[in-house]
């Protein structure tokens, strides 16, 4: 019988792994370089504006950070953004979790059409309704008001049900049924049985709920137009770049602000990632 030549399995695996890692490293670099540039530029002491043709500062300094907190309204904007984001996170998380649980567990008429409708509506960019939303808010005196912004961000929360519902669908329904027989109400089941098992998805929901208003520009610039004290960081920082003189003056301060803005999200993720584990339902049912 003729000996057939086979390709070495190990050599093939090593080669393909090397190629995959090379591509991943290149992608990571492309993704990380702007971030590192931002950090480095935030420590530039000399005022050369945006026109400098070098990256590393000639004079390392914290001046940009000092100026950020003493000479600008950044702290007010930061506080506004934090307040809006925290309130929206709390409401959005509660609404998303409750909607998802209801859609996962309850069977009612028009459930599927409602889910489809929410999914389709969610696909349209939010800014399409911006003008209408603005006039509604104006009618109820909520323009240039943080409460208005919170309402806008929270209003469509339920439409983000699908990932969360997918997770709830994986929690066996027999747990709900066992609890119902034990005497638990729907609310008790949700709070005492389902939520403790849904930590990963709660964390995911909190993170997405926080990140969206934290960096959102379009709605907040429209609703808060004309009142710098009500600006969020995105709107405020953008105002520094509105004309070339200001952009040149505030360029490095902008970089310092960008670094400060990224801190809460990074901290939140680091704090929450320990809950972000799988296998939480281990042992509940036969796997």
């Amino acid at each position: 019988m003729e000996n057939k030549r086979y390709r070495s399995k190990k050599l093939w695996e090593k080669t393909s792994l090397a190629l995959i890692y090379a591509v991943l490293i290149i992608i990571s670099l492309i993704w990380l370089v702007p971030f590192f540039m931002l950090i480095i530029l935030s420590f530039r002491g000399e005022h050369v504006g945006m026109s400098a043709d070098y990256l590393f500062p000639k004079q390392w300094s914290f001046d940009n950070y000092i100026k950020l907190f003493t000479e600008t309204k950044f702290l007010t904007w930061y506080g506004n953004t934090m307040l809006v984001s925290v309130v929206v996170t709390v409401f959005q998380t509660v609404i998303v979790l409750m909607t998802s649980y209801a859609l996962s567990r309850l069977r009612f008429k028009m459930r599927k059409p409602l889910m489809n409708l929410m999914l389709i509506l969610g696909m349209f960019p939010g800014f399409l309704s911006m003008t209408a939303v603005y006039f509604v808010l104006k009618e109820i005196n909520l323009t240039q008001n943080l409460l208005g912004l919170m309402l806008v961000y929270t209003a469509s929360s339920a439409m983000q049900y699908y990932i969360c519902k997918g997770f709830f669908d994986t929690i066996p329904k027999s747990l709900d049924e066992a609890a119902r027989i034990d005497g638990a109400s729907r609310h008790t089941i949700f709070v005492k049985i389902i939520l403790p098992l849904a930590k990963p998805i709660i964390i995911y929901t909190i993170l997405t709920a926080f990140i969206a208003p934290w960096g959102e520009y379009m709605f907040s610039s429209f609703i808060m137009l004309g009142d710098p004290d009500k600006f969020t960081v995105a709107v405020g920082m953008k105002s520094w770049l509105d004309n070339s003189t200001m952009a040149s003056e505030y360029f490095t301060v902008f970089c310092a602000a960008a670094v400060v803005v990224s801190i809460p999200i990074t901290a939140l993720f680091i704090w929450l990632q320990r809950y972000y584990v799988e296998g939480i339902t281990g042992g509940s049912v036969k796997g």
Partner: protein
Amino acid sequence: MAEVSLKHIYKVYPNGTKAVNDFNMHIEDKEFIVFVGPSGCGKSTTLRMIAGLEDVSAGELKIGDLIVNDVEPKDRDIAMVFQNYALYPHMTVYDNIAFGLRLKKLPREEIHKRVVEAADILGITEYLNKKPKEMSGGQRQRVALGRAIVREPKVMLLDEPLSNLDAKLRTQMRAEISKLHNRLQTTFIYVTHDQIEAMTMGTRIVVMKNGFVQQIDTPKNLYNYPENRFVASFIGTPQMNFFEGTLKREGDDVNMSFADCGVRITVPYSALYKAQPKYLDGKTPVYIGLRAEDITIAEADGRAVIKVAVSHKEELGNETLVYGTIKPEGGYAEGAASIVFKDVSGRDIKAGDVLDVALRLERLHLFDKDTEMSVLPRIPEYNYLDCEVKGGRLEFAGAELALPEACRCADGKYQLLLPADAITPAGELKAKADDCEEINGVKLVALNIGGTRLYAVNLDAAAGKEVSFGIDLKKITLTADGECVVAPMPAENEIDCRFVKRKTVVTEEVNGRIKRKRAVRFGFEAEGAFFEASDTAVQKIFAALGIKKPLTAKFKLVCGVYDLAVAESGIAAKVEGLVCYGAEKFLRCSVGGRDIYVAADREYCGDIYLAPDFEKTGVVETERDIKII
């Protein structure tokens, strides 16, 4: 502890699929009932309806004295063990068991006492602080049992609790659950697809298939007296042998021919007394059933000995399962000719051997090939006799009695179909009671009248004694050449009706003043007559059909001939004639194109009105054929 009663229970899904059909059963206190059947037979659905996890589409479900159709699971005083344990993974074993008690807001000491006691019974005390994921399957199922027993429920429901365990653990847990039942003295309802679990644990077993109950009986009776081929094949390992064949009566013997293979054996007719004559005509095909242990290797030639060509065998240590074919020429065992039997003699059997095997004919089972129902029912429904009508008198088996006007027919020879329950204690006929047996609370008496055997279920007689009896002629059928000449009085009438809503004005006295107010009444409308429905009836209709459908659906009222009465107003009927059974008279009326029979004390003619007794009248939804009331 409680009795559980299921009356005409249905489960119909919105797409029209009937998961459970007309389930009727009364479960006694402290019974261990097992629902068994293949996947999709409706056993788990029935259990979940009892638990309250599925809505009952129609019917009445009672736990104790309480109708629980619309009662929350937690208020039904039941506990349930799930197939997949359903333990709360984030809680310790202690918290899992105590969860329900905490929700009941029991004192902490009481909760602790009950949890420790349950853990002690189930041998899981040392695991109380562990989480479910740290435990094995068997231990987890014990925790699930513990969670159920601490609730001290009236009824314990177990949904395939052992199917996720390995074979050894299953046997062990089976014994433990039986012990637990003895110890707790509670009603247990257990669902399984494993017939060994059913046979070893149940005091009574419910065999189900395609949503229908096939048979409800004790394990022993199910094994020995299966009512149909499905039950016979489902219960027992290895499965019962089935052969196609025919039976031909020749005097006191019946020749049994096995189809396809030409084997014939002789069976004494006495073993087939309960079979309908049509099965003994040598043409009607039947399934011949014999269990593996009722076939043994024959030591000598006998009348029930056949040859088996061995195809292969399975050694089980204490016995050998021998597979083969009853085709004399041997070859591969296939279909109707294949056979399996148990050999406990330990002899050396090889593939290709041709053996003489003896069939235990007293353990023979026969089933109709079309309906698959047993040809030898334990309680025969009918007696089949040849008879003659001469001058208005009926003669059969040497007995004679006058036919009433309703049963009059031309002189000649007929076949008499006499239901076992039509033989009544009061009468002038005499017979000898050959045999008496008590079957599931029914006393079956075998009468010998002029050498002909009659089965009766309403007689109180002792074997060997002479007994007087009469015949309820309302129930007999006379046929000639397959044509019905005299039909029995229908047991029930059916009248088409609709469920309607009516707005009325009612007056009531409030503080001495008469007040008028609008009210909505629901009721049944048949042939222009309106009968207000009771609150319970209205609830049942809406529970079964939802809010809108009852007012558009078609219904029929089902009532016996004695449950309808001639009245001043009511359902318009036209009298077609008078049917006289001696002193008893019935009006034959036409209502909406249907023939209706009504007991009457005198003759009426022309148009009359009928009023049903709604205490005894059932309501059936016509489209899905569901008995709602």
